[in-house]
């Protein structure tokens, strides 16, 4: 037996594994899953082809027109009838469908990203603040802001009725005062009476000039508002109002609401993005809020509060990173949904304005020629929609498994 020198022994300490960050862990889990790899491949294919086509493959939809090539089936080699190669055939204006499908990807991705950006930013912020202040007491500065804002909103009606902005300012002031003196006649019915009376006075007196009935209506409104402001409004109030608003948006079916918003804004790709973005705000708001509620009682939040960190810092430095995983998953799947909704709007003629290439609009353009046998004009744009949506969904599925091993089933 030969002597073994110490250098030849590879010491493996099985108790301590190499240090890896959570994200690297998640990434390894992600690329070890077949379906996630498939999803990544499809997404990469669409993203790359869209970007490359947009920057390196010139296409001007306004001059793309050739009636001699109207509705030709797909060809792989050039022949006498069709002198050029059309992988996916041509549409009713003789345009190459392959080219339009590839360029359409740019528009679909843009819609997806902008729409998800809108709903993620607005919905995410609403959810973050609603979930946070539902559980954490507001600081006096925040309470002043909340009360002042509530007063301002409530003061708009009397200000409008009496045709002068003074009441809104006075009501805001009353709100600030209510927040500034939270202990003034606390736990006593007197607080209610005092604030109600103050509210009545600050709205009724400035509207004396506008007529006696105006004074009466404003005064009643002011008394009610004053009574509301005398209550110890907390984050729960804010959260309730916000979530109720989200419920209202959610009680409209997505497509109809999007169609109505587009009808209001006018057709166009940009309007479509906004409509789809608005429609899915509540999804993100609810998701973020429930994610916040799941971690808000954790020790690190308590610790951050205990050392006196500012609320903004707790929200964005401690809370946000810890609720990222469900939001990343929802964002990926949201991209899929946005692409699908954009295609639906385009199909109904409410999305991209022709001749701009967009998958849904291409379908809507060509489906009347289905009965005359032009299947290629419908098949390929639809396949592009389905595959890209499937890609994002597969990726989102894989991300869910990778980011949250507890959910792994």
């Amino acid at each position, binding site marked *: 037996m030969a002597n073994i020198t110490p250098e030849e022994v590879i010491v493996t300490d099985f108790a301590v594994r190499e240090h890896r960050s959570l994200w690297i862990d998640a990434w390894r889990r992600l690329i070890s899953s077949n379906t996630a790899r498939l999803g990544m491949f499809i997404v990469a294919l669409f993203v790359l082809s869209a970007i490359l086509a947009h920057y390196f493959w010139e296409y001007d939809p306004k001059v793309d027109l050739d009636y001699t090539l109207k509705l030709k089936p797909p060809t792989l080699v050039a022949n006498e009838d069709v002198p050029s190669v059309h992988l996916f055939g041509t549409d009713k204006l003789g345009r190459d469908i392959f080219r339009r499908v590839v360029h359409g990807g740019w528009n679909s991705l843009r819609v997806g990203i902008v729409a998800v950006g809108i709903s993620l930013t607005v919905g995410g912020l609403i959810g973050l603040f609603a979930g946070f202040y539902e559980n954490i007491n507001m600081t006096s500065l925040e309470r002043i802001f909340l009360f002042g804002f509530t007063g301002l909103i409530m003061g708009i009606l009397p200000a409008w*009725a009496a045709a002068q902005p003074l009441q809104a300012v006075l009501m805001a002031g009353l709100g600030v005062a209510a927040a500034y003196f939270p202990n003034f006649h606390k736990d006593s019915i007197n607080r209610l009476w005092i604030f109600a009376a103050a509210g009545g006075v600050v709205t009724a007196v400035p509207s004396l000039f*506008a007529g006696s*009935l105006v004074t009466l*209506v404003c005064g009643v409104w002011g008394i009610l508002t004053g009574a509301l402001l005398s209550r110890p409004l907390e984050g729960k109030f804010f959260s309730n109002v916000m979530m109720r608003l989200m419920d209202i948006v959610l009680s409209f079916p997505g*497509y109809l609401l999007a*169609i109505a918003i587009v009808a209001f804004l006018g057709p166009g790709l940009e309007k479509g993005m906004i409509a789809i973005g608005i429609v899915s705000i509540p999804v993100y708001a609810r998701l973020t809020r429930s994610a916040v509620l799941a971690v808000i009682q954790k020790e690190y939040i308590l610790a951050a509060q205990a050392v006196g960190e500012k609320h903004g810092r707790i929200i964005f430095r401690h809370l946000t990173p810890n609720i990222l995983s469900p939001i990343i998953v929802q964002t990926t799947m949201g991209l899929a949904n946005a692409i*699908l909704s954009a295609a*639906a709007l385009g199909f109904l003629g409410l999305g991209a304005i022709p001749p701009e290439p967009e998958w849904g609009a291409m*379908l809507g353009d060509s489906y009347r020629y289905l009965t005359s046998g032009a299947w290629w004009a419908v098949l390929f744009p639809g396949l592009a929609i389905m595959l890209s949506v499937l890609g994002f969904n597969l990726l989102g599925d894989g991300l869910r498994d990778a980011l949250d091993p507890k959910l792994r089933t």
Partner: protein
Amino acid sequence: MSNYIIRRIISVLPTLIGVTFVIFMFQRLIPGDPAVAMLGEHATEESIERLREQFGLNRPLFLDREALADGDLAGFFDSQYVRYMKRLFSLDMGESIHRRIPVAETLAIRFPATIELALLSMFIAIIIGIPVGIISAAKRNSAIDSISMVGSLVGVSMPIFWLGLMEIMLFAVLMQWLPAGGRLGTGIEIKPITNLYLVDSLLMGNFQAFKDVFAHIIMPAIALATIPMGIIARMTRSSMLDVLQEDYVRTARAKGLGRGLVLFRHALKNASLPVVTIIGLQMGTLLAGAVLTETIFSWPGIGRWVYDGILGRDYPIVQGGTLVIALVFVGVNFFVDIMYALLDPRIRYD
């Protein structure tokens, strides 16, 4: 329990008020003057003004400041919104601007058409989605599992209008097996009893008519069913997997019960709660989201009707149709919540 139901009803009220408010805002914010839409481009100023007067379109939207300044309290509240709410409470939905048919009348015909389509789609989605989910969970990580899960993801990713077009191309244009659109073939009479034609034709005992109705409804129903099918299959699978890890399932297997018995008697029962929830939620989406399917198959339902109403500025239709859809939506969600509380005694709501 009844306490919970009452509190839940109260919490729905602000949502309902908000819904009516949003619907009101939409029909007023959509550009275009309804009076001009009604009379056409060539109407005289005078007749337009008279019509605006007649429909109250010359009133302010919410509150009348000038009436208040004049000391007229009733005039202060006499606005378009208040009139609209009054009409709602007296269940008067007005009549279509273009066709002059009462909205409620059209609704009574069109709403059952959408319901029939949605119910059949949901039926298809359930009888395929749930077994697929159960099998995937039982054969976890097998080839069957992977295939059916990717398959259900394809279902979720399906642009239903495209699937509908492909169906038409295959079965109506190429094979000529099924009609490409509509609800009823020519020359077939159905006595409307429930206005669900499948039920009506059976009630009449007319199997010829039933066959025809079925041939018309099956393609749109399948197109509409793909997305909920995928969602139900995935939900069933993950919920079953959760339950199959429980101790009582292991105990049942250990004491010698058969695999199938444990799967269906023990596991499925306890896994069904989230599945029932998702079915309820999808039902609302189906009822409402049928716009696209109805467009492609010229199905005379409510989604298509509202869509045409929005484009044609037919405000009463938009208002009545959206209201019914939103009410069904809110109602289904409410029902699901209550069912949840009834089905799962572990959940305490007070």
